[in-house]
């Protein structure tokens, strides 16, 4: 990955991430988030993590973000007109975030990172074959647990989001009463 491409993507992702925080319209927040995700995906691919980069675009920027969009439309959210939240929380939050950023940036300095740097990769690094080698040998148990987690999430999401049966019965009765009155 060339430094020019890196700085372009870094600028794009930071501007888009700021857009998520600053935008008043939730749909605009979401579009900014998708832009951040896609620029991070290109950064993945630029570091030879090709499969994960494509998964990021398809699963994250595709599926998960569409789920968010569905919920925004379902709830019919309006643009926030007034500034929300308490000023004190924002002030303390800003100080806390600045401290966190300074700490993380000092931690990210290469002198602190005890990493043996390598710039060339073995053939097949980041391919779907290499990824599945890791997933189905070293991380097999974690992979199986993940499938159970997804099942639990599906059942839990349906159980949480559906109306309770009592409410359904009541609404059905009201509908029938209205229909009888009209007839």
């Amino acid at each position, binding site marked *: 990955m060339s430094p020019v491409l*890196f700085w372009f993507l870094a600028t794009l*992702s930071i501007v888009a991430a700021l857009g998520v925080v600053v935008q008043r319209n939730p749909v605009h927040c979401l579009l900014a988030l998708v832009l*951040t995700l896609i620029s991070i995906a290109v950064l993945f691919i630029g570091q030879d993590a090709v499969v*994960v980069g494509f998964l990021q675009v398809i*699963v994250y920027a595709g599926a998960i973000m569409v789920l968010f969009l569905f919920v925004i439309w379902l709830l019919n959210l309006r643009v926030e007109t007034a500034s929300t939240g308490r000023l004190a929380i924002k002030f303390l939050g800003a100080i806390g975030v600045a401290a966190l950023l300074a700490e993380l940036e000092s931690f990210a300095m290469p002198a602190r990172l005890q990493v043996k740097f*390598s710039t060339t990769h073995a053939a097949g690094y980041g391919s779907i074959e290499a990824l599945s080698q890791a997933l189905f040998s*070293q991380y097999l148990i974690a992979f199986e647990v993940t499938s159970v987690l997804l099942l639990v999430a599906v059942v839990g999401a349906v159980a949480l989001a559906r109306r309770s049966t009592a409410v359904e019965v009541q609404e059905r009765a009201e509908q029938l009463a209205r229909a009888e009155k009209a007839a």
Partner: protein
Amino acid sequence: MVQLSWLMGLSAAIFAIGVAGFLIRRNILVMFMSIELMLNAVNLAFISLGSRLGTMDGQAIVFFVMTVAAAEAAVGLAVIISIFRNRETVHADDLTLLRW
């Protein structure tokens, strides 16, 4: 040549923006998006370090993080829908049921 510290710095910056969004915004959905932002910043750090180490471990962990993020989004959005149905709000300051 892209330095490792640049990538880690970018990751830290996006993480900090995510934290700021979570603290500043009061719309639950936008707070949720900020969490996704933080998850992605950490993913970027995993991929960068894994790439420099030449191992697939970072990418495997990013795969798991994506799966957990999908599960978290599904359950979290279901909770938000449930809250909205009962309280007609997505404003975090209005939800004070557990406050003493």
